[in-house]
């Protein structure tokens, strides 16, 4: 079941196969949760948003056009749910960066590259919400600027300028961090 293409799993799931639905879930759950987390930066909100998205997607498998890829469809639903979750909770920023356990970090990520990536994540988290949202959607969720504009309800030009300003701010922030390193 794990090797079946998405389309076959969806067809089988529609016919009532729990195995197929389970395989589809296993294939996409982490992807959906991380997408929700990237938008919300908060575990609790990500849990809620990802669950809601996956429920919506699976509840609507009957209407899904199997000639189209499943992943992008789920991603779009997830991002919508995550943005809704943020709006409902009225907190566009979260600071639960979800650090792994201490020992795990030391063993796994204690490389120069690992530290560099952490610094990038920290710097992204520290950006103002409006700019952060654009970078997260662009680089962590691979959305084109036009789609981001649609999602955030903004003109594409605004999104493009926020994108370039956010990148510039991030660049400055990271270079300051380098210079101010103890």
């Amino acid at each position: 079941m794990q090797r079946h293409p998405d389309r076959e799993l969806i067809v089988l799931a529609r016919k009532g196969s729990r195995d197929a639905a389970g395989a589809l879930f296993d294939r996409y759950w982490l992807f959906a949760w991380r997408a929700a987390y990237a938008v919300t930066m908060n575990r609790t909100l990500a849990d809620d948003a990802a669950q809601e998205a996956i429920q919506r997607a699976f509840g609507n498998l009957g209407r899904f056009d199997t000639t189209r890829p499943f992943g992008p469809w789920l991603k779009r639903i997830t991002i919508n749910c995550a943005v809704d979750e943020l709006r409902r909770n009225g907190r566009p920023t979260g600071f639960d960066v979800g650090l792994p356990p201490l020992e795990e970090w030391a063993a796994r990520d204690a490389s120069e590259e690992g530290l560099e990536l952490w610094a990038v994540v920290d710097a992204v988290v520290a950006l103002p919400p409006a700019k952060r949202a654009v970078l997260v959607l662009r680089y962590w969720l691979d959305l084109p600027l036009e789609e981001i504009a649609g999602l955030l309800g903004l003109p594409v030009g605004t999104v493009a300028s926020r994108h370039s300003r956010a990148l510039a701010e991030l660049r400055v922030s990271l270079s300051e961090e380098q210079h101010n390193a103890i």
Partner: protein
Amino acid sequence: MPSELERLLREARETLPEPDPAVTRRARESALDAGRRRPRRLPLTVGVALLGACALGVLLGATTVSSGRAAPAAVGFGFLPEPGWNVLQTGRLPTSARPALAIGANVLLSPEDGADELPYATLLALPPRGVVIVVGSIGPRDKPDAVFPKRRLPLRLRDAAPQIDWGVQVRPARPLGQYQLRATVNGQTVDVQIYFGTEQPRPDVIAAAQRQLDRLVVGVGSPLERVVERAQPLRRPANTAAGTAGSVIDRTFLCTPSYGRATVVSSPRGTPEVLGARFTSSGYGRVSSGSNADPLSDLVAVAQPGFRNSATRFPGSVYASARRCVASRAAVSLTRTGLPGPSVTFRTQDDCTVRAKVLVRVRVILARSATWRRLGGPGGVYNGAVPGPVVEAELAMKDSSTGRPLALVKLTRTGQTQLWTSPQCV
């Protein structure tokens, strides 16, 4: 063509965390159930969903809306205790030089714990239905920001986020539920840490915690009631073993600073670091070679977990540069003899001129056992002891050629620091 920054940004998404297995299990079940539904059952589904939503609303209401008494107008900083709760607090209004702490617990507080530090002994013995709320403040804040957004009392637990502070679980063998809520309340910074005795507290326990949180007093108001230092006396919990420190690290190093200058820094917890409020200190003392441009300038550092500069986050608690320092058997006293007082308790940095090398001794009592091992660092390798938190630490430095003491830093478990330096340092 994508820039280096854009490449890093894309790769950084791989550092995002993963969902909890329990959440995954629940999501899987609900996904499979959702997949089985048929459109013709929609009215029933909607009915069930509405019923569920009502039930959920009742549950959430029961767990997040307090039926307890809100704090009346009161002065000071701390908790007015709910029945059955013990509170212990500094009582005074906080300032950046004199931070304030308030502790509320539905268990008896251990006599090992003081009013101005995280109650580790109580937390280590916290039963499954136990709750400890620790509220810290470093005083007024110019204006709320994203880290400390403006909120009104009573604060709500539903605004708290699960938080393992800098990756440190207080009790790894039997994990606590750890949550954090930050706010600017009445112009004061408030950092609330909520510890439940289990990772999944029951709704009635959450509701009880909310009732005590309702009784938090922050600063201003008509003095109808005054927060006192110890609203209830400490009592030793029956059959509770006293908390003990996990291990002691005591090492001396001979270090070579660059440019004949050794910089000693002490930074109490909560102090804004170089880039302003974006990074606040977790509480540390360190000796560096004095070059801010050199990420390897740190010689020896001791810190509460979360020690970080603007570029790097270290896992905790004591470090020595493997490049610039070697172990030494030389004697370095951990006293302030030869160092004029009084001590400095705010963030400070002094440059000490040295002839060649410095001897640095670090003595740290850690809450958990720790081993000294090699750690990765920015562009190189540090030696360090990983697990924190620090119960108590001292860092002393002297000039190896003259034998004169240069500095002494003391660090407490709450991240407060004291620094004495010689006139050789400015």
